[in-house]
């Protein structure tokens, strides 16, 4: 045990299915190799991290740096993506760090329920679906003032019309989200609808109306994709657009052990 190092844990696999070769091509959050820490039937996916970067004070400071955080979050995700291609994996949230390998083993032995979680996600992967509504051309041309009274009146009418349109669009979005979610959930083992991402986050002009995750059996992935394509074909001409992401490790479908 080195004084300056900690152990960062990405997630767990079943020891019987885990080999370090799975992580041959990926680097850990601190750039070093990814290894396995085994206890009983569980294997923690871990890597050594310098406490100068991941220690209690240092990490709080580093978390405030978007560039630092983005690089580490992506590294975390790449490690788990590599695991996903090889075996069922239960992903941990970012930033689970132990002082030494022994503590990682203790964590595994204290959370035997992780094996149950691994069984639950066996043969299933998470797929994400986002629904977008095409941006309508901003037809709220502000009235050019001919005289003050008509301009004021037009302004109010315009405002009322805009509110009515917004309400209609809200109702439309809710209906489409419900419809899509129901159809997709029907071919999934589990489903969850998450908070919508605002435009600044999604990086798109279209308004998001669905941001959901589905736990899909691998043998039904093709069917799931067909449902997405069917939604696109049916609602696309009316301005809806669906985007499939993943497969992801089952981030949305693991529960915290008690």
């Amino acid at each position, binding site marked *: 045990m080195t004084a300056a190092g900690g152990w960062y844990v990405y997630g767990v696999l079943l020891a019987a299915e885990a080999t370090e070769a799975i992580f041959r091509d990926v680097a850990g959050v601190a750039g070093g190799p990814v290894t396995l820490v085994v206890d009983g039937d569980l294997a923690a996916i871990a890597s050594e991290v310098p406490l100068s970067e991941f220690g*209690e004070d240092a990490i709080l400071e580093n978390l*405030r740096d978007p560039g630092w955080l983005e690089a580490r979050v992506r590294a975390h995700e790449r490690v788990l993506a590599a695991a996903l291609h090889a075996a069922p994996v*239960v992903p941990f949230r970012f*930033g689970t760090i132990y002082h030494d390998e022994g503590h990682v083993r203790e964590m595994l032995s204290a959370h035997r329920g992780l094996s149950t979680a691994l069984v639950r996600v066996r043969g299933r992967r998470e797929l994400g679906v986002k629904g977008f509504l095409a941006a309508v051309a*901003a037809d709220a041309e502000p009235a050019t003032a001919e005289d003050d009274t008509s301009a004021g009146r037009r302004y109010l009418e315009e405002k009322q019309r805009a509110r009515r349109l917004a309400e209609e669009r809200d109702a439309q979005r809710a209906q489409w989200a419900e419809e899509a979610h129901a159809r997709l959930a029907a071919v999934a083992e589990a489903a969850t609808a998450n908070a919508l991402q*605002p435009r600044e986050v*999604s*990086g798109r*002009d279209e308004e998001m109306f669905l941001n959901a995750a589905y736990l899909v059996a691998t043998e039904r992935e093709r069917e799931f994709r067909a449902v997405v394509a069917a939604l696109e074909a049916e609602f696309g001409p009316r301005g809806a657009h669906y985007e499939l992401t993943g497969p992801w490790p089952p*981030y949305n479908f693991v529960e915290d052990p008690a």
Partner: protein
Amino acid sequence: MSTPARSGSQLPTTYGGRQPAQLADVLERVLDKGIVIAGDIQINLLDIELLTIRLRLLVASADKAREMGIDWWEGDPFLGRGQKDALEGRLKRLEQATGLSDGDRGDSERES
């Protein structure tokens, strides 16, 4: 209406050689989902959660801002410790407004 840089959140990470994962989708999962087990290093999850949202707000505009030489999020008072209440309040308002208006964003911009 401003047009967010579409390429801003598309950095090269792929699953199974498919389309690149967007940063917002990765952040949402890695920081907000997944199993939470207490490690030896105590990280205040509230800090992370607030940061996540804060970062999410930056994701799409960060690249564009960098192009213009703006890094206003660095040294942002909202990220200072002890400012959580202010940040939380602001986030609530932002969440209520479906999508940010330019005006909302403007007050945290420091271009001059």
